[in-house]
């Protein structure tokens, strides 16, 4: 078996949509959802597809899961071609498209899993055992959710059940589209831990889409940053961070008067070259100075001296490394809120 679970070469997808201009008039528009993306996912790794809304994440997952035909390019999942050998791919993938929907409300979690297990070709002797294993693994039995109707499930329970369904066939490849969207921290962590475990302990290949930078950083071994249908950057979280200009943030919390903080802001901007300074009042008489600098070591002494010489008390001082969010903003051009 090849070590590569997913191979995507120059994948393109265009949607033809109709823009309504009134009751009777409409205009045909072509939207390029994917503009020639290429990537690979190996067994035993979690690869994150990270991008803003409309970047092409779900389109990619749909193509890989044989629910959408590509316009151009080559896509192989488990060595099978997505266009010609879709049925073979369906045997070896587990999919999860969001967590809100996708089950029958009048069936319990257990019944839903049994239903899909049968649909995925599992035999009766295996179904019972596998469903029980998964209910235990996802802790749905512990939550008392196994025999509860799906319509009574919380979002966290729904997400767990959805992941359980993706694992029914024990597939070597998992395609997970925003599996933790809207979840409470405990459920989200459970899902994240499981996904990492599935890749690292069981050797599954996982393609994981998310908007969540924090999540991508802790779950994914590699990240593909996708924007406007193109992969704009690729690498491990630390590789990606090292690729953006080394601008770090020096954050200093000080006790000062309003006048002295205004003066300090002016002085620091004048004295230090190529530094952007911002001030935020944290509480009465306490301010946070944030200095975006290329070389923290060079300016540190000057900053401390300027603050102390004006009789201001330093409460806290820290240096912030760039986050994945900074990487995301740098490569996609999206502005931080």
């Amino acid at each position, binding site marked *: 078996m090849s070590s590569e679970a997913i191979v995507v070469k120059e994948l393109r997808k265009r949607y033809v949509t109709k823009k309504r201009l009134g009751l009777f008039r409409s205009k045909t528009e072509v939207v390029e959802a994917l503009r020639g993306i290429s990537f690979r996912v190996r067994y035993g790794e979690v690869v994150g597809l990270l991008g803003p809304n409309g970047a092409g994440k*779900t389109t990619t997952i749909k193509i890989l899961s044989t*629910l959408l035909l590509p316009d151009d390019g080559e896509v192989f999942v488990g060595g099978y071609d997505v266009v010609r050998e879709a049925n073979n791919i369906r045997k070896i*993938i587990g*999919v999860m*498209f969001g967590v809100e929907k996708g089950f*029958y409300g009048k069936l319990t979690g257990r019944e839903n899993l049994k239903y899909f297990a049968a649909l995925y070709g599992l035999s*009766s002797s295996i179904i019972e055992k596998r469903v029980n294993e998964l209910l235990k693994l996802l802790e749905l039995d512990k939550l008392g959710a196994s025999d509860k109707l799906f319509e009574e499930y919380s979002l966290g329970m729904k997400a767990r059940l959805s992941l359980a369904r993706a694992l029914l066939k024990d597939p070597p490849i998992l395609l997970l589209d925003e599996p933790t969207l809207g979840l409470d921290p405990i459920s989200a962590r459970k899902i994240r831990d499981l996904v990492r475990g599935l890749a690292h302990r069981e050797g599954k290949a996982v393609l994981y889409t998310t908007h969540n930078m924090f999540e991508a950083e802790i779950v994914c071994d590699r990240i593909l940053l996708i924007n406007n249908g193109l992969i704009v950057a690729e690498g491990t979280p630390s590789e990606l961070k090292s690729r953006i200009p080394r601008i770090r943030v020096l954050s200093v919390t000080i006790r000062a008067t309003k006048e002295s903080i205004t003066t300090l802001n002016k002085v620091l901007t004048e004295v230090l070259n190529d530094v952007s300074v911002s001030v935020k009042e944290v509480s009465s008489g306490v301010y946070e100075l944030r200095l975006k600098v290329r070389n923290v070591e060079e300016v540190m002494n000057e900053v401390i001296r300027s603050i102390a010489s004006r009789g201001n008390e330093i409460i806290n001082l820290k240096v912030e490394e760039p986050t994945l969010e900074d990487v995301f903003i740098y490569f996609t051009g999206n502005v931080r809120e």
Partner: protein
Amino acid sequence: MTFRELLKAEAIFVYADIFRRKAVLFTYIAFPYILTMFIVLIGSSVGSYQAFKERLGTDPIPFFLTASYLMMSVLAVSDDVLWKPIHDKMMGTLPYILVTHVSKLLYFITIPIPRLALVILLGFASLPPVFIFFYGIEGVYTVFRIVLMSLLSSVLYITFSILLVGTLYSIGGESWRILNIVRPLLLIFLGIYYPKFLMPTMLFIVSSLLPPSYIIELMYRSLLNIMTSQTYVLELMGLAIAISLIYAPLGSKALGSWERRKVSKGVEV
């Protein structure tokens, strides 16, 4: 092996819905009576109970009870097959169903069976009191005949329903509106409320394309005491089975075409 598992799965799906909603279960039991009551009440107010008996040679109550029961069993098939993709689209389960490697034809064949089985069994509970009242102990024999004929006509309807769902949804997508137009037309073409042998030629030809229409015709001939030779009975049954079998590969092709259309446009997730 897969067929058995699929059937079990569909049984869980259907029975959970029916038994967890008591109103649905009650409707199943009471439906033939409610419908008969309405038809007889409306019929009596605009026409004559006696005239019906004289013209058709049978009592309207068992006639319409049979028709309602037959309609229920036939609808159990067409409704379930036509409704399931719409329901799955609404519930968000459609992508998870399309992504299975199991034969879609097999899957669609299993869809109506659990509900049909329930309807057929309920026939033994809802039909005998009326038939015994009208025909005495002979009525029990008639009930058995009706139930068996209903079962046969419904089973033979499965492949046609699959062909229909594949064709309709390939053309117009999964839509309630299509279903609402098609359902009443099917009931007319099947000859449930208007016996096939009384139909005008064009209607008769269309009706002949539907396998259950042959069995339904036999049932009405029997109910209306029309002499029918054994050869004719076997001919009609043979035709119904043959047409139904022809529809199986066509249905499979139609489902394939529906799936291809969905995948080329992209399945909504």
